[in-house]
């Protein structure tokens, strides 16, 4: 095995995650997802594709739902990141989390955190979305288990406009 080539000193980047500031000494091109999962041990944000095609890794960056797998850490410097852990806790759940629990809007749950993030971004800019708005806001989130309708109903419920369960 050859010794690794001498490394450039790593730049430091300051990011805020779930209200907490972190100064990180990492390669600026490191994906935000890696930082969240492997440096900050926030495992609620998931890896699904690594190429901004599935939504499993979505986080809020300054209120927008963004693929953290595809966002280099340098691009997040000085910005505020919210992960699913930052949305709410069992003691103080976000209204979306409450609604997802009440409507049992998950199966395997792997896609769920990314979906919650997209939904939170939607509700913050449109507190009373129509169903079509929800479809549009969630169209970048894939779910293979087929929980889509429950998710839409839960978001409507969280927005205070529950749809009847049966069409």
């Amino acid at each position, binding site marked *: *095995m*050859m010794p*690794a*080539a001498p*490394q450039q000193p790593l730049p430091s980047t300051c990011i805020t995650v779930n209200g907490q500031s972190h100064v990180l000494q990492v390669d600026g091109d*490191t*994906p935000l997802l*890696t930082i969240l*999962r*492997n440096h900050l*041990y*926030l*495992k*609620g944000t*998931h*890896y*699904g*594709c*690594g*190429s901004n*095609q599935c939504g*499993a890794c979505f986080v809020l960056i300054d209120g927008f739902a963004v693929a953290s797998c595809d966002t280099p850490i340098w691009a997040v410097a000085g910005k505020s990141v919210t*992960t*699913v*852990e930052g*949305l*709410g806790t*069992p003691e103080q*759940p976000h209204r979306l*989390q409450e609604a*997802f*629990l009440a409507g*049992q809007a*998950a*199966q*395997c*749950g*792997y*896609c*769920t*955190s990314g979906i*919650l993030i997209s939904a939170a971004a939607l509700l913050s800019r449109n507190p009373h979305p129509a169903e079509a708005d*929800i*479809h*549009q806001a*969630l*169209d970048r*989130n*894939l779910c*293979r*288990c*087929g*929980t*889509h*309708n*429950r*998710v*839409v109903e839960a978001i409507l419920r969280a927005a205070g406009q529950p749809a009847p369960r*049966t*069409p």
Partner: protein
Amino acid sequence: MNQGFALPAPAQPGQLPGNLRGNPHLGQWLRITPEGKVMVSPGKVEIGQGILTALAQIVAEELEVGLNQITMVAANTGFSPNESVTSGSLSVQDSGRALQQVCAEVRAIYLAKAATHLGEPVASLQICNGLISGPSGAQTSYWDLADDALLDTDATGRVPPKPNTVYRKVGTSARRLDLPDKIFGKTRFIHDMELPGMLHGRMLRPNAPGATLLSLDDAAALACNGVISVVRDGSLLAIVATGNDEAEHAAAKLSAGAVWSQPNESLPDEQDFASWLRSEPADTSVTASPPSPASSSRTIKAQYAKPFLAHASIAPSCALAVYDGAILKVWSHSQGIFNLRSDLALAFAMEPEKIIVQHVEGAGCYGHNPADDVAFDAAWLARHTPGRPVRVQWSRADELAWAPFGPAMAIDLEADLDAAGTITGWRHSIWSNGHTSRPGRGSSPALLGAWHLATPFERSPAINPPLAGGGGAERNAIPGYEFPNWQVTSHRILNMPLRTSALRSLGAMANIFAVETFIDDLARAANTDPVEWRLRYLHDERARAVIALALEKSGWPQQNLIEGKGAGFAYARYKNSGAYCAVVAEIDAAEQIYARRLTIAVDVGLAINPDGVRNQIEGGAIQATSWALKEAVRFDRTRVTSTDWESYPILRFSEVPKISVHIVPSDHPPLGAGECSIGPVVAAIGNAVFDALHIRIRQLPITAERIMSELAQQP
């Protein structure tokens, strides 16, 4: 909300039900702790379907404890009962019945102990949330009396479970026990596990199936930051690094230094896979009804096809392993941890007892996905780095290209009709690779990596499970209608250029699609309403009840006067012995086909958790809609080319139909719900497309291109 549901009638006294037969030791199934917990350790595993919650409800009911007093312990080959594979919608039948009996016996054992302790007769004791009290007011509890020695005995089968009339927990829609963790982003998935000193492995697969590694220059990869080693055995190649990103980064360098043999053009023509299936050498089996005399005046024939389908789980498969020089411990989201252990033992020439497989939840699993393969990869690397745990996660591209696929199928149907238009003969022929190549069932490991070693293990072609258990390619090919003179011919293709294995509902989806759309054509040819046509050949009351319910709830028959809209009906009883399901699909035909609404009626026997059943039916229906309208594995003559979500699109939020699920209340034995809606949904969509466009599409998926080319061929 007790609906008087019953678990299936107990077996004869002294006879053990379900998976208790092979695993009669009570202490293997559950423990009662002094701290106030019932620890339940079934051999079935959570794969996103909510099984652990349904099993917990059965335990809560039988033991008279609260759901919050139960801890479901993930299965482990070291201590759990061997319940083989969690598949085929069989868990409630196999595991639920076993646990029900275990709990009935545990309750009796603890009541006897409490009776002695309290000095009151057993018959006078009451249990509530684990507290046991007598008429005098004296109290004890499971927790006070907790003693593992009490359960160090085999089940007798002589204690009757509670009568269904007193059920209060089974039959209610209890919330899933695992969902809070998933909704609050708590560490729960195997992907989230960290072990001290853990290394990260990254596999480098050949550039095409059948290609071999000719030479390797690994200098650039080894020079990368964080790289520990390059591990190679024949054409099995991996990099091990201190971090996941480091491994991925170095893997790109390693890939540049790897020279693979020229791939041979081993794959069939994607555009004409049906002809390929029909021309391959095959193992042919025939099942037929006893002949009855009949004369026919004409025969109607049609041909159908279904492409290879991918599992396309939302998470790439992942596993961890550690080897201390003697014991190999593996963490896996496999559906069958004991089967995986057998194949790992074969692959590494180890005694099975020296291998422990611990189940950890992964993303949704719809059949034999690469969970077992990646467990082999992690174990293989762990054996090269003794003492250090290794985590391996596949890439998205590998997950879509190297997983087993649901096999492509070609189907011929023929119906003989007499002068009055009555069916007098029915023939159903299938060409397909086998529908299972799961681990743990052969003399050679069914694990991808084991086939790439310098001394490779033999890869056995996929087979079909026996018809008695539902069959594989032939699943739902035997008519569910009362036809005289039927014959099912199954040609199992022996050559397997694309690896195939079990995918949700196996052959049932394509068979039901073919049969149920063919029947609509037969009914139309006879100027008969398609539902009425079916009912002539269907006298099972449960079948008729789900059909009536679906029609009523959907408002069938709809007058289709609006251009571009259509409605279609389909029915099937899954595996001919499982859940009954009838579906009305409504679609819009615009620039593509949109499924707008599905009305689904089911009879799943006892619904342990009605909302859980609904969730499974909805999920199955959405996956089926995706299969019907969008999905096909893409490949050229050398390799799979659908390796991301753009080349393998699945249904999105904007494309998902509204779904209503209607459950027929039933006290029949519980039947799995996960797969029964698949075939009828696909077929009902096919019939709705015909209703809208008067074009019969007989090859899946039903895409705009296929409709256009069908239109172009019409006179």
